[in-house]
C-alpha cells in the first residue's frame, strides 16, 4: 500500500441547488489496487464517480486523476481512464467488433495496435468468436464483458466500474469479478468500483471506503472495517456504519426510463 496515489480527492464538495450531494470527502487510491466505493442509494457514489470522470464539475475541493486536474485538463484525464457505466452504453445495432473499433478511433488508438488490442481483449472475455454478431443479441453478462474489454482498449491506468454486476445472476457476477481481478493484475490497472453486493466487495476489494449522506464514514480494508465495527461480515459493518433505515429517493427521470426500458424489454 505504499504505491503513489493515482486518484486523489481533497475536500471534494458537490452541491445541487442548495442540496449537498458530496460533502467534503477526501480519499486516495494507490496505483494498482482494487478500490471499493460503497454506500446506500443516494449516498453520493455516482455523483463522486461523475466528478472523477470529468462529467460533473466539483463545487469545491481538489482532484487529481493520474496526475491531472479533471476540470482543467479533461481530455488528458479521459485518456487515463476507462469506464463501465451503470446503464448499458453499447450500440446494439453494431457488432461487438464495431463497438470496439469505434472506441479505438475515439481514443485515437493507432490502427495496428487497435487490431491487436481488440483481438486480445475479445479473446480474453470470451467474445472473439462472437465478434461479428450484433450486440443486441447478447445476454446481459456478455454485454458487460464487452464493455469491460472496450474500456481497457486504450490501456487506461484506471478502470471505473459503476455497479458492474447489478442485475446479473450469481454465476455471471462471479465470472465478471474473476475477469476484473485478472485484468487488474495483468494490465496493472487500478480499479475503482461501486456495488450493492457487500460479499463481492469483501472478496474483491483491497481497500474500501464507505460513503453515506455525502460523507465518508469509514475507510480501510474489509478486515479493518469488520474489526472497527465488531461485525462478522462486511455487510454487518456496512449496516452498523450506515444504519437500518431504507433510503427512499424520489424517482428521477432516469428511474422512470429504467422502468420503461425493463417493461419494454420483457415484452419482447
Amino acid at each position, binding site marked *: 500500500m505504499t504505491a503513489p496515489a493515482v486518484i486523489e480527492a481533497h475536500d471534494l464538495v458537490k452541491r445541487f441547488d442548495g442540496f449537498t450531494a458530496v460533502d467534503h470527502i477526501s480519499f486516495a487510491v494507490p496505483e494498482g489496487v482494487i478500490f471499493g466505493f460503497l454506500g446506500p442509494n443516494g449516498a453520493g457514489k455516482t455523483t463522486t464517480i461523475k466528478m472523477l470522470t470529468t462529467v460533473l464539475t466539483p463545487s469545491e475541493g481538489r482532484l487529481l486523476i493520474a496526475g491531472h486536474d479533471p476540470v482543467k485538463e479533461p481530455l*488528458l484525464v479521459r485518456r487515463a481512464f476507462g469506464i463501465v457505466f451503470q446503464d448499458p452504453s453499447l450500440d446494439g445495432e453494431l457488432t461487438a467488433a464495431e463497438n470496439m473499433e469505434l*472506441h479505438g478511433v*475515439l481514443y485515437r488508438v493507432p490502427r495496428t495496435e487497435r487490431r491487436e488490442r481488440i483481438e486480445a481483449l475479445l479473446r480474453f472475455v470470451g467474445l472473439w468468436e462472437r465478434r461479428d454478431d450484433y450486440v443486441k443479441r447478447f445476454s446481459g453478462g456478455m454485454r458487460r464483458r464487452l464493455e469491460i474489454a472496450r474500456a481497457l482498449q486504450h490501456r487506461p491506468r484506471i478502470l471505473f466500474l459503476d455497479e458492474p454486476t447489478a442485475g446479473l445472476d450469481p454465476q455471471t457476477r462471479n465470472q465478471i469479478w474473476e475477469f476484473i481481478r485478472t485484468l487488474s493484475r495483468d494490465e496493472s490497472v487500478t480499479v475503482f468500483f461501486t456495488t450493492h453486493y457487500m460479499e463481492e466487495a469483501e472478496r474483491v476489494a483491497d481497500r474500501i471506503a464507505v460513503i453515506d449522506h455525502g460523507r465518508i464514514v469509514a475507510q480501510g480494508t474489509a478486515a479493518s472495517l469488520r474489526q472497527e465495527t465488531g461485525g462478522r461480515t462486511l455487510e454487518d459493518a456496512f449496516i452498523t456504519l450506515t444504519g437500518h433505515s431504507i433510503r427512499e429517493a424520489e424517482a428521477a427521470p432516469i428511474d422512470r426510463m429504467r422502468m420503461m426500458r425493463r417493461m419494454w424489454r420483457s415484452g419482447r
Partner: protein
Amino acid sequence: MNAVFILWLRQLKRYFRSRARMAGSLGQPTLFLLALGFGLGPTFARAGGGDYVQFLAPGIVTMGILFTAVFSGIEIIWDRRFGFLKETLVAPVSRLEIVLGRTLGSATVALIQGTIVFLVCLAAGFRPAEPLLLPLALLFMALIAIMCTAIGTAVGSVLEDMQGFQLIMNFIVLPLFFFSSALFPVPDLPGAVRLAVRLNPLSYGVDGLRGALNGGFAFGVATDFAVLGLLAAILLAIGAYLFSKIEV
C-alpha cells in the same frame, strides 16, 4: 479515421440495418401522398390549381426528411441514458466533434430517406418539370435535412425523458409541417395563416424544393436559399451549444 467520420458512419450503419425503421418512416409520407394526392386531387384541379400530386410531391419529400431528421435527434434522449452516447461523452474528443458527426450522420440519413420518398412520388405519377434542376433540388433537400436534424438535436439535448415526446410531436413537428405550404399554395391564404407560413423556416425549404422540381418559387430562389442556409447554420450552432451542456 477521425471521430467525426466514424460517428457519421455509425448513423448510416444504424439506418441501413434497421429495415423496420426505414419502412416505418416511409409509411407516413406515402399515406399522405396517396390519400391527399388522390383524395383532394379532383377538387384541387376544379379550383384551378392543376395537378395536386404534382404540387404535393415536394411537400411530401420534405415531410419524409422532417420526420426522419427530428426523430433521430430525439433519439439522443434515449441514447444518452441507455445507449452509446455516454461512451462518447467521456471519450477524449470534444463535444463539437461528437455533435457534428452525429448531426451530419442523421442529416445524411434524412436525405437518403427523402430521396426514397422522392422515388415513391415518381411511382405515384409525379414528374419533375425541369430534370436539369435536380441537383438544386438535392441541395435544398440537404439544407432541410441539416436544419431539421439541428432542431432535433437541440430538443433532444434539453429534454430529460421521453415524456416530452408527444409535446414535440404536437407543438413542433406537426405545426412545422402543416404551416409550411407543403399541402396548400401560399398566395390565397387568409392573413394569419399566411403569416404563420412566412415565419415557418420549413416553408422556405418546401418552396425551394417545389421551385426546383416544379418551376416557380413563391418567395424567390435566392430568398429560399439565404433563409434556409442561415437558419440551418444558426440552429446547428444552437443544437451544438445545447448538446455541449448535456450532463450524463
